[in-house]
């Protein structure tokens, strides 16, 4: 676990010592802030549902952007070969980078706290339990998208390709819930179960359901394992 921690630290320091992370964060927060405020006072309800609806949408672009470089950059620069000569397992590389991406997402969510604080001032008895649960849900969605981003990044040396691949998978999972009316009924149950929004909606209203948690953990585990396997391919090819 020490190796994972070392890689995590290295990645975090790389994030916060470059302007890219800050610019990405600012764009993420500006878009969220805009979405949030354009409906919050119109709807006039003391909850953060509007934020919880908009963040997963912004995540679709934000998370592939922050993960696209994590493995692809190493592949492209040839440092991956160097990394693999060290006494480090592939899964440790993937986990270290995955945790750092999740931490960056957590930092992004932390900076949305002014919206929460606003709610405490202008709202009437907001439901704190439900809001905290919503944030937990956002972190799970973020972690799931990050695992897909890791896979996209592992597959290609090109960051744009990585971005597009993870974006397409994430967007499809996001979209499944929205297109159910257009699919035959026998498929709708499966597509709904696969969709991110379906599982997130339960958590965002304040209910932690083990079925939703297991879904998120399954997808994360699946894509992280896939990423490790993809890294291993290079060794036997």
């Amino acid at each position, binding site marked *: 676990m020490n190796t994972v921690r070392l890689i995590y630290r290295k990645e975090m320091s790389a994030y*916060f*010592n470059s302007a890219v992370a*800050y610019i990405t*964060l*600012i764009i993420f*927060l*500006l878009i*969220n*802030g805009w979405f949030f*405020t354009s409906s*919050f*006072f119109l709807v*006039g*309800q*003391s909850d953060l549902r509007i934020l919880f609806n908009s963040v997963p949408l912004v995540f679709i672009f934000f998370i592939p952007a922050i993960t696209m470089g994590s493995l692809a950059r190493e592949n492209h620069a040839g440092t991956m070969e160097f990394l693999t000569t060290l006494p480090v*397992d592939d*899964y440790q590389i993937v986990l270290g980078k995955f945790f750092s991406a999740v931490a960056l997402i957590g930092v992004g969510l932390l900076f*949305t706290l*002014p*919206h929460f604080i*606003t709610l405490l001032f*202008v*709202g*009437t*008895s907001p*439901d704190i*339990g*439900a809001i*905290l*649960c919503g944030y937990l849900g956002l972190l799970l969605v973020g972690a799931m998208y990050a695992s897909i981003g890791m896979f996209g990044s592992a597959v290609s040396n090109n960051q744009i390709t990585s971005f597009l691949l993870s974006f397409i998978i994430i967007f499809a999972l996001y979209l499944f*819930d929205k297109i*159910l*009316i*257009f*699919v*035959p*009924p026998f498929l*709708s*149950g499966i597509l*709904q*179960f696969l969709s991110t929004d*379906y599982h997130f909606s339960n958590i965002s*209203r*304040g*209910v*932690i*359901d*083990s*079925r939703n948690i*297991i879904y998120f953990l*399954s997808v994360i585990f*699946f894509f992280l*394992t*896939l990423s*490790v*396997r993809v890294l*291993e*391919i290079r*060794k*036997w090819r």
Partner: protein
Amino acid sequence: MARINNSKQFALSLVFLAVILILINIISRSLFFRWDLTRGNIYSLSESSKSIISQLDDRMTARVFFSEDLPGEYVNSRRYLQDILEEYRAYSNGNFHFEFVNPDDHEKAKEEASGYRIPPVQLRVLENDKLEIKNVYMGLVLLYRDKKEVLPVIQTTEGLEYDLTAAIKKMLAKDLKTIGLIAGKGEGVKTHQLSQFLNQTYQVRPVSLNSPVPLDVDLVLMNGVMDSLSMDELYHMDQFLMRGGKLFLSQARQEAKVQEGMAESIASNIFSFLEHYGLTINPDIVIDKLCSQIQIQQRQGIFSFNNAVDYPPIPVIRRFNEESPIVSGLDEVRVFFPHEITASPDSGTFTPLMWTSKNSGSLAEGYFPAPSMGGNYTLRNGYNIYPVDNKQLQKFDKGPMIVAGLRTGSQTSFFADSSEYAEKEGFLAFTNDLNLLLITDNRFFDDTRAAGIPENTALILNAADVMTGDAELVSIRNRGIKVRPLKPEILTSDTSRNAWKWANIITPSLLVILFALYKVGQNRKKRRKLEEYYG
């Protein structure tokens, strides 16, 4: 993690992993836990539901007629229904059972559903590359001894727990309470939908004041009168109250004619009757800055268009008496053209239930027409309620005003001093148990104002439950309709709204910039130290 060495192993390991994860997810659907973090656990079974289901002393079966291949948005309803039925089963001491039946391909099940009056619902689904209308079933029947209660269509999860618990409670009840409804004589007054809501837990029937209110009627809901009642009608109302009957009266002093932009006074002896009971309805119409909007048609050049405008004579009530179970769980109620109630201190107990906001006022009588209608103001009888350019609708110079309240305690009869009526056989001159709820909206029980506005319906159902001494369902109903509005001063002031809006857009990014500057400063410090160290 075992290493893989060729593409076959790669593919196999992925298939194996996917199968394991799918299995775990399938198993998790039957073995699960839910942790409800919301305030009041609004997504879990309420204490009232648990208490009611635990009263079962015989087997109750829920036969759920639910089609399997439902369009996506309804799959969730099915799952929610199954979850909630499982919770009922858990608290029923083994007396509650449920079974899902799919009537789609089974004629017998279809016949059974139709026998219980569960109709097929038509939904649009995509089949064979085109949208088709499909008949699906989404209903259930509860069977208990020789009784049955049907929820014919369950399309939404909203209020499902209330509907189920109300149905179970109705089946357990030995004698159902009876509510009498006096719809009123105004044009187009309808109480059909309200009756349907009340029918879930009560027997509802129309009553008239032409004869004594039947003894089995526990509560009367009465829309406002437009002119005087006959003395006999007043007598029957009075004696109903004297014998401990409960009255929820919706009475105003003005009849609003929105199309004409004016309200006319109601001349009725009911006001002196109410004054005898210690309740005076102020003649002026209450207006409130916190109000509903109405659509009005406006002209600009050759174009006319509909515009939504704030309409202060329809206040949105958000201040409730938190100590009264009738209103304590409510967030919002809409009253139309209400009046202030003044309670006489000499009479029994008066409990105010609802207040307008502190930005409210009352219309002065007699200034017509509004400037936009042409001409100057003229003094006439009546109240100007024209929605456009009406300065009278902008004066919010009075504090919160009571628009609904409950009179309880002791009371002498209105006819105690009448030689004609006091002599009648069975005359009751006094009660220690008065229950008179007054709301100053003339049509509060009309379907457009009651059943059409969920919060208003909730108020009526709460009042019915509490006044008939059965408040078990109140808590479930209030859970379902929870709305938590923002503070009114934020919504009504453009300046504060814009300030909050821009602060929310800019502050998060500003914090990131400050954090970045802090990091740059730290890095510089570190670099300087290293430079000093290495000279």
